[in-house]
């Protein structure tokens, strides 16, 4: 079982890592650029969207998500699910504070 698991982890080409690093740097610059623009209510969603793309790149490329077993993906998705719970229930407080009783 362990052998099968290891056999799926073929090290990616160095060029892929360099390309990913370059994209992360580009997206960082994009975040800074977006931070100086006035998108109104879309400022936060845009910043979070860029951050989500960067996180996805890290998980899929640097953390070898692309070649991981289904069990590993269950763990990754479960973590994202719990993050959604944390943010969602927290926002349920912030978004409904102004509502009249």
């Amino acid at each position: 079982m362990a052998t099968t698991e290891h056999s799926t982890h073929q090290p990616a080409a160095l060029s892929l890592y360099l390309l990913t690093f370059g994209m992360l740097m580009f997206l960082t610059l994009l975040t800074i650029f977006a931070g100086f623009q006035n998108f109104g209510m879309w400022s936060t969603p845009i910043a979070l969207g860029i951050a989500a793309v960067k996180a996805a790149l890290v998980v899929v490329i640097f953390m070898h998500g692309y070649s991981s077993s289904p069990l590993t993906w269950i763990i990754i998705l479960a973590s994202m699910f719990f993050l959604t719970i944390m943010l969602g229930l927290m926002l349920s407080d912030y978004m409904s504070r102004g509502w009249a009783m």
Partner: protein
Amino acid sequence: MATVGLESKTFEKFADVVGHDDDLNYLNHDHSVLSWLFTLDHKRIGLLYLVTITLMFLLGGALAGAIRLELLTPKGDFLTADTYNKAFTAHGIIMLFFFLIPSIPAVLGNFLVPLMIGAKDVAFPRLNLFSYYLYFAGSVIALTALLLGGVDTGWTFYTPFSSTYSNSYVIVMAVGLFVVGFSSILTGLNFIITVHRMRCPGLTWFRLPLFIWGIYATSVVQLLGTPVIAVTLGLLGVERTLGVGIFDPRLGGDPILFQHLFWFYSHPAVYIMILPSLGVTSEVIATFSRKNVFGYHIIAFSSIAIAVFGFIVWAHHMFTTGISPYAAMVFSLLTFSVAIPSGIKVFSWLATMYGGSISFGTPMIYAFGFLGLFTIGGMTGLFLSTLGTDIHLHDTYFIVAHFHYIMVGGAIMGYMAAIHYWWPKMTGRLYSEFWGKLSAGITFIGFNFTFFPQFILGYLGMPRRYYEYPDEFQVLNVFSTAGATILAVGYLMPLVYMPYSFFFGEKANSNPYGGSTLEWTNTTSPPSPHNFEKTPVVTEEPYHYHAKEAAVVSH
């Protein structure tokens, strides 16, 4: 044949499965200090944790003693207000992060998980040792913070006091907790992978002992929740040192955000403390009732349910902070849902004992104590999850009593049951049943004397975290302090008779209590360095006492 008090007659017939082994075992195969400090053996690492957390427990207990002494009289005549703040902060931090969270998972989880699943070690032994040293380093940093002058924020580190106003050693303590948090994460990760990957042949998920289900659920919480507290304390440090506005309203931050993030971890942390004790109770009650566990599957799933529900109820700690009343209603409703899997467990244990051949060994006495105290702690939690009553009871001694019933009455009673139950396996020696039962009884009585009056004090309106109080509260506070001295005797007794038994106790055979799981049936006491002479093959459910008893009778 080794005997275990009155219960020996029941247990003798199962006691010779492996027999006592005078030969090589994990304790005597190498005596050098370095062999302990650099061991990769999960059993030795478990014992390293045992020694370290016991020292932390003594320190936390001494601080509790100082708090109770101060509260003996209405005036502040033993500690100053500032010292009192630092004492209850240190008590909370040490007991929660450095004793309770690593207690059963790190000590008994390390010792038992491989033994119970028929493995030679955990999945990553080096990572396991690294986790211990992270814990050790975190402890040293936290103790350094205390020696430098301590922290006065309470263990909850609420902002903006902790981020802006407190002039105590918040950053140093936060670093200590950050480090110890990673010990917890790595231990959880190790156990999850061990349970997934290293079960012996035939050990399917529904043949796992319920202790393993408890540890597995705990590990999931550790893995998913602990990073949040690490990040939160990191943000606190960033705001405190660099002035970046995150929690401080003057800088555009929101102090309630800290409480959301803090409790997103710290409420599930309660389940890190209690879930392993729930697993222990299932093991002890099955063994000492000689019965298959009633509702095995539902108990296993209820552990997972508690772990999941634990993540969606955190804002019940914040009902009085000004959060949205609509969100408060949702969190109140969700909080009630945790009572369902907890209740399922309690009823299943009662049904397990019903019609069983119950014997009253020391672990079972502790488990009985756990059942009563955990139930009271859980039921009083319902008072606090109800929005209306919580307004009255919030930040009073009712809260203090409630969480001590869960975390001391529940988690520590479970820990004591576990230590007493598996001590013969860990050391190959039997402790005195007389002193064991006496200690369990004294702990139960002392605990109730200490904390039951605090329910009344809280209901009458005595707030927590004040070093002075009105005269009319003194009688109940004297009760509480007197109870604490009894409780201290109950906790100190095992520190005498357990080490004594380690050196002078009667030798234990491989299965003195007639347990049916792999660590009892397939290993010696103490186990050999590699646990099993040959890899066990599991062919049946974990608690098949009826079949075993029938087989013995037919012989």
